[in-house]
């Protein structure tokens, strides 16, 4: 009883809670407006998107998504009238602007590149990172602190500074504008994060588990496989998502080292243009599709976020 009353002495008062809650909710709502605006713009027609004053209420349209996935050519009304009935929503929308769909745009290939490169590099980084983290956590590695610091310090270089020699190196090796080259590069960038995070997670698994398994006749490798890995699943999953988000969001290397076949979505989205300037609904549509996976991951990760963004330095 005395404990609870002592507690209530320092607990914030109801008024202060209400004030704090109001300010936080206001901040959250204001900070989320740009994202809601992207989402809303993706369902606007191009004239609606550039209306003054900015339109909050509008007739939703799929034109942005249609323009994102297709390339179009302008035709005369006579020609369009001579065509058969429209085959789909996009066909119909586009014809209203005196245009016909000429073919698919580059968005899908770029999006698929993003998927391949993000998942490929994440798999490699987590694989290498788990092995190294286990090594650093369980074996007496000489100069372990120096090696760990070396691994971290590779993260401090400005990406453009790294990109200059990488650009030359990839040109020599024929890795320019290839998915393999980007996977290697992102793996190298992400492996430092993976080692630091996973070492923290593996350090938390008691050594006794493996030792017991080894006394039971497992080899060190089997003990690692059967006792440590299953225990580290949460940590490995969280690390993987962090690596995935980095690779997914990365722009500097992608913009400088890829231009065509291996280009990812972030350098592609800003290049979407319509007639007479940037086609904002299409850009918004691309941005929305690109951001949705990240929103899902953020919600999944919210308990591990702190650890991830501080390289495991703060664990709560």
């Amino acid at each position: 009883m005395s404990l609870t009353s002592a507690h209530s002495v320092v607990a914030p008062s109801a008024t202060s809670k209400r004030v704090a809650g109001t300010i936080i909710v206001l901040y959250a709502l204001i900070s989320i407006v740009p994202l809601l605006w992207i989402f809303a713009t993706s369902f606007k027609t191009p004239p609606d998107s550039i209306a003054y004053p900015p339109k909050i209420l509008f007739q939703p349209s799929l034109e942005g998504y249609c323009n994102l996935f297709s390339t179009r050519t302008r035709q005369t009304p006579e020609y369009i009238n001579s065509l058969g009935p429209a085959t789909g929503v996009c066909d119909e929308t586009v014809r209203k602007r005196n245009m016909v769909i000429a073919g698919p745009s580059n968005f899908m290939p770029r999006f698929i590149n993003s998927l391949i490169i993000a998942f490929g590099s994440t798999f490699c980084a987590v694989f290498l990172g788990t092995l190294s983290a286990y090594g650093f956590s369980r074996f007496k590695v000489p100069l372990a602190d120096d090696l760990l610091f070396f691994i971290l310090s590779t993260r401090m270089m400005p990406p453009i500074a790294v990109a200059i020699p990488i650009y030359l190196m990839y040109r020599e090796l024929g890795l320019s504008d290839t998915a393999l080259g980007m996977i290697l590069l992102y793996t190298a960038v992400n492996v430092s994060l993976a080692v630091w995070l996973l070492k923290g997670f593996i350090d938390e698994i008691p050594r006794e588990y493996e030792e017991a398994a080894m006394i039971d006749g497992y080899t060190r490798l089997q003990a690692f496989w059967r006792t440590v890995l299953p225990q580290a699943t949460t940590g490995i999953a969280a690390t993987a998502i962090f690596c995935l988000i980095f690779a997914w969001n990365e722009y500097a290397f992608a913009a400088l080292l890829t231009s065509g076949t291996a280009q990812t979505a972030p350098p592609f989205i800003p290049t979407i243009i319509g007639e007479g300037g940037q086609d904002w609904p299409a850009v918004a549509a691309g941005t929305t599709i690109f951001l949705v996976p990240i929103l899902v991951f953020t919600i999944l990760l919210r308990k591990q976020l702190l650890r991830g963004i501080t390289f495991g330095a703060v664990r709560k």
Partner: protein
Amino acid sequence: MTEAGLTMLNRTADSVARATPEPLARKVRGISDKGLAWLFISPTILLLLAINIFPLFWAIYLSFTNYRANRPNEVVRNVGLANYKRILGDQDIWIAMQTTAHFVFWTILLQTLIGFTLAWLIDRKFRGHAFWTTIILVPMMLSPAVVGNFWRFLYEPQIGLFAYAISFVTGIPATQIGMLSNVSLAPWSIVIVDTWMWTPYVMLICLAGLRSIPEYIYEAAEVDRASNWRQFWSITLPMALPFIMLAVLFRGIENFKMFDMVNLLTGGGPGSTTEVASITLKRQAFESWRTGYSSAFAIILFVAVFGLANIYVKALNKVKQR
């Protein structure tokens, strides 16, 4: 370089093997613990040597030459320290460094102030605080490039939402609010977007700091009848300080390297008013193709980040020990 790297690696592996304690080092199916340690760690080290360290040494070599990547067949001349001397005397580089300093200073100041305040408020644990915290965290997870590109739209003088909101509040006509075209406003346009994006980051770390303060300290302060004001300045702030400093370190390094968001939002313009160091580096390296010169600049930037970060970490450790 490759040879030197391999020897270094072999030596590391050797000492790994020697240092692993004897009882653990039993042979199992041909792989000893020593062997396993080396097998587990070396792929990572090899990859980093190939993709990070080798290019770094290459960049150091290039920084002493007049090499130009767009003319690979031209004879490469060793120019000694000429590139470094020219950088230190280059007016444009100094302007870029000032732009970077302005950007880093204001973003960190604003993010720390707002981030700490938000964390302090969230720590009241009002109802629903977990949900709203997650909402606040969203901007920092997004791609800075894609977000920078979209803020260009929000900043448009007439049709943009930002300009409209400002004119709604202040009464200044929306057509006159050219955040990206006005020379004196443009440097603030990048500060605003970065603050919007990364304040949650500082907030999250500060929140961890506040939650790490044991409650009994406050209870003792209550017993001593210390005022709320006094408690804040002599308990809350000093005990959260290492966390705040950690957040500042991470944000400082990141913003010193800032490229993606600024490149897409302003591209360094108008003129060179928002040309932070990384943008200058990109222009020199990939537009003017002065590879040797830009490599020297890259090395200077890297040494600066590395040096400043090291000094800062020493200070941080001192604060932690107090």
